[in-house]
């Protein structure tokens, strides 16, 4: 379904939102924070509040060694995952451009201007590096991808009555101990706008199941922030394809997922050893080359592990 059609189906976003699930999710994380404090507050080196992001939770679910390695290693800017990540960030920027100023005129120059205006000069340099790839075919392919993504972003020319915002920081700190936060790609409506909140995650690549978990995490964050469940939430993919996620239950299940991750993190503070689970994710792991559990030849794609939706 196309984004505008999907939004039209939500009417004016004035449906009654559920506050009970938001309260239950809040209580669950408040309890997790209390448990975390009780378990580790006397241990040395603990920095409060302890921040639990969706990526940490997702990594722990895949392989605790991956989570550990990512916490310790700087992201490899030259690695295989760097260009897809940059393309995703470019799409986020194009969506912001479309919402604020209309269509992107020059995908490369405008992207550089946007990042410079944000003070993100490192990204601009990285972009120049990627577009100056020694293989001219690769460089051309990357420019074409940016052109395509800039066109795709035109789908976000939505009704301004939704008060669309991009890269919205949302989160909550519990008892000064546990911080659960993130940055939603696009938020429509919500407090201060007169409409119910709608959360959109903008994806530049192919769908897979992890995206749903991520979006449910943002539903949790929005529920914690607004004190009520969002009206709707969806993943948006190139081709103007909207995949909506069932909102009821998402906050409670995500709260349990975060609470579970928090318990594991507390266990590591107490000295427990991370468990290794090889899989497709080893392809992105900084220590896969030296890990006994690594399965670097496991197909190399999420699809091979059944992650694809």
């Amino acid at each position: 379904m196309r984004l505008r059609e999907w939004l039209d189906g939500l009417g004016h976003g004035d449906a009654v939102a559920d506050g009970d699930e938001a309260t239950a999710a809040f209580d669950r994380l408040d309890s997790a924070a209390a448990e975390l404090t009780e378990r580790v507050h006397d241990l040395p080196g603990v920095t409060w509040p302890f921040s639990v992001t969706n990526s940490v939770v997702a990594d722990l679910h895949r392989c605790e060694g991956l989570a550990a390695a990512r916490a310790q290693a700087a992201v490899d800017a030259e690695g295989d995952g760097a260009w897809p990540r940059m393309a995703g960030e470019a799409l986020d920027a194009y969506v912001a451009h479309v919402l604020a100023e209309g269509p992107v005129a020059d995908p490369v120059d405008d992207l550089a201007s946007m990042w410079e205006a944000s003070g993100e000069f490192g990204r601009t340099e990285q972009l120049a590096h990627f577009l100056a790839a020694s293989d001219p075919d690769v460089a051309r392919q990357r420019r074409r991808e940016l052109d395509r993504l800039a066109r795709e972003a035109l789908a976000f020319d939505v009704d301004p009555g939704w008060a669309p915002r991009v890269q919205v920081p949302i989160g909550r700190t519990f008892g000064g101990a546990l911080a659960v936060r993130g940055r939603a790609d696009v938020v429509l409506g919500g407090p201060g706008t007169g409409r119910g909140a709608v959360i959109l995650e903008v994806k530049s690549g192919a769908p897979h199941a992890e995206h749903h978990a991520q979006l449910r995490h943002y539903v949790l964050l929005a529920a914690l922030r607004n004190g009520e469940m969002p009206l709707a939430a969806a993943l948006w993919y190139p081709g103007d394809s909207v995949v909506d996620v069932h909102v009821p239950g998402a906050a409670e299940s995500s709260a349990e997922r975060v609470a579970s991750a928090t318990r594991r993190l507390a266990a590591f503070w107490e000295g427990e050893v991370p468990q290794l689970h090889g899989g497709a994710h080893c392809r992105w792991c900084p220590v896969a080359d030296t890990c006994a559990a690594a399965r670097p030849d496991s197909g190399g794609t999420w699809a091979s592990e059944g992650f694809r939706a």
Partner: protein
Amino acid sequence: MSRGEVAVGWRTALADALADAGIPTAEELGGEPGRERVSHHHAAAVCAAGAFVSADEFVPTATAVARAIALTSLRATADPARRDPATPAGRVRSVVADTTTLPGWVADWLDGLDRAGVAVVVSAATRWMTDALALASRKGEPQWLDPDPIRHRVARRGVTLTAGVDAVRRTPAVHLLVVRLRPGVTDHRLAGRLALLWALERGEEPASVVLAHRESLEVVRFPMTGGVVEQAVLDAVDDVSWAMRPSEAPVVAGAACGFCSLLEVCPEGMEHRRSTSGAPFPTTIAGVDGRQDAAGGEPTM
């Protein structure tokens, strides 16, 4: 008591506290202070060294520009009946299209941007404004204030204290409102500084300072009772002292070390980073670095 009398009273209290603490005057120091401007960010800094030793220059950021544009937009359309366009984005775009209502430093900054750069600013200002409306409108909209900070030139020290207050609500007691991203461990100190500067420059003693957090839409009220402002005077004395002699500002290593420009020359910060890197995960995991394992060595990451 008149506003003038209130202001004089707090200025006297600050001057006396500086003298009691033995803070030298600029003349006694024999030169310019190490830092002339001390903002509310310094008051809220966990590590005084990180805040006071870094470069003393005002560099506008996209965040500061966005706040200034959003506040100007809110002030320009304070009357809901005159809100045309009605959406925050539309109101922000109106202000950006005619920069004469903006502070000069914001207008200058915008002049240097192309259309894509403006998109970033409009986007950030719209986000700020929508959050501010959500946070502040629960009791009816407050009086939004000029984006430029309150400034108080500390007598005979060559140091200026500054703080940005976003809105005021009069009930008729004065309640100050500041919109922030998220709470911090020094929020009580920040609230005290804001109240002190308001008293010093506006001649009113605020009944409370409300810190409103965009990330969580939480609103935390700090009543200005029980000696809070008196403590803020003492905190200001510390800040003036460190502004005059930044090298004496104490180091407090913590989470902010990772973002500190002085990290490489700060032994305490480096040690903190080393000892907490990757926490809570262990630095060694059995099964990782299998080659070392095979050689009988300690497996490490």
